[in-house]
């Protein structure tokens, strides 16, 4: 569950990115976060992952109170989240398998658990046959599916995707969103940032529209501006 109450965020350089946001996303929901460039979407993502702290207001994510989080507790919050970015952020010299396994390894998982789980998740995202390819040998859509597998590997409660289809053509984008929808149907909350109208329109989901740091609309179905 993600809850924002009266949240403001002003960056150190004085930019007011978030100007009073209240919202509540329940476990199991699929939510699109839409809005023009610079409206504050990525800032919301960073507030959820505790990469940035709110200047004012209260944020609770999967039971963690972000404003009061001690830096030692941040890893525990992050293990409940799976984050996906527009630019994939894969490690270039590691294979698909190693990229996914890496995320498990660095939170201290046992090699046996890793060997057991990675192939299953690669199967889920449809990359079993590419397990030993390097990222540069993959298409953009495939790379993003590796990133999704990595986000899923530690069994998070919430997936947050910041413009996951920003670098992909419409057909690939549709595939990625379908995959996220499928993951959502298996019980994971999905928050997807996008500004592609076509995508939003083709899914009957809750859409939260942001403009200039505030929520301008929050309803199910269609891209509203």
């Amino acid at each position, binding site marked *: 569950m993600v809850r924002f109450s009266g949240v403001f965020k002003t960056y150190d350089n004085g930019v007011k990115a978030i100007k009073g946001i209240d919202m509540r996303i329940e476990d199991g929901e699929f939510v699109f976060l839409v809005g023009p460039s610079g409206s504050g979407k990525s800032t919301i993502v960073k507030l959820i*992952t505790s990469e940035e702290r709110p200047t004012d207001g209260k944020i609770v994510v999967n039971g963690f109170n972000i404003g009061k989080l001690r*830096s*030692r507790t*941040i*890893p*525990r*919050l*992050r*293990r409940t*989240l799976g*984050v996906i970015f527009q630019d994939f*952020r894969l*490690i270039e010299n590691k294979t698909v398998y190693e990229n996914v396994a*890496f*995320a498990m*390894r*660095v*939170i*201290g998982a*046992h*090699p046996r658990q890793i060997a057991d789980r990675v192939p299953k998740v690669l199967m889920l995202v449809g990359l079993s046959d590419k397990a030993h390819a390097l990222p540069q040998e993959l298409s953009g859509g495939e790379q993003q599916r590796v990133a999704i597998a*990595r986000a899923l590997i*530690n069994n998070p409660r919430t997936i947050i995707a910041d413009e996951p289809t920003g670098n992909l053509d419409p057909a690939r984008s549709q595939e990625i969103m379908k995959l996220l929808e499928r993951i959502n149907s298996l019980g994971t909350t999905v928050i997807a940032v996008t500004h592609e109208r076509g995508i939003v329109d083709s899914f009957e989901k809750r859409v939260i529209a942001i403009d200039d740091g505030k929520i301008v609309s929050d309803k199910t179905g269609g891209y509203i501006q």
Partner: protein
Amino acid sequence: MRGHNLAYFLREGIKSIFLHGFMSFAAICIIVACLLIIGSFSLISYNVSLAIDNAEQQNEIVAFVDDTLSDEEAKDIENSIRAVPNVQDVIFVSRDQAFEEYSTELGEDSFLLDGLEDESVLRHRYRIFLNDIELMQETADNIENVPGIDKVNASLEISEGIISVRNVVRIVSYILAVILFCISVFIISNTVKLATFNRREEIAIMKMVGATNAFIRWPFIIEGFLLGVVGGAIAFFCQWGIYDYAAVKVHEYMQILNPVEFTDVYIPVLAIFLGAGFLVGVFGSVVTIRKFLKV
């Protein structure tokens, strides 16, 4: 720490060393060089100290007893001299003994003493050894004030010379050790900084998926540790070779100098080199990645 994690840290640390092999090689060379300089100076300093101890033992004060005292009275002063601070040992030398000593010392030239059959021209005397020759002047003055002592001979120039040699060697060793320690830490810290820079994307991903700072830190600490300890070990064997070679040469040129065998000091040398390598390595990496993980 669980075994599979330790294996992971070791593997990553070692991988990182080879990933930027030139920088690692340079770091090890610098550490070896710094340790060799520190080590050589310490060994020189140690040998000088031994030589000084030796000289100190031979550096004595001679106090002459007032002629008007009887033999008994002359012997009784010994306790008063012993009571003077800084006096380590006192040996009474009677006229007869002094005469004999001179004779044997002069050897074939002992005919010079021929006119002096009567050893009464010599005086009873005390040979006095000190704890600390730095206080020789003061102690000599105090002994001169002991009733019954007429005159004191103290070779102040020698003691002053010995002291200044010792102090110079000591100070130079300390200063060098501090400077070279800082240089080594700086080099290791730069190597680790490069390693963290090369891996900044990996580190960002680690943080994103919820790795703890401790987990992220370990491979870098192990990298620094390995560089430091490998440097320490290499330096040890180089030091051994250099020392043995130098000791032979020194003895060849100056027979009176007799450097200690390396095998007499190799345990402390090894301990210090490995310890210094360990400290430099771990310190250098911890300092660097503390800054890096702040975000």
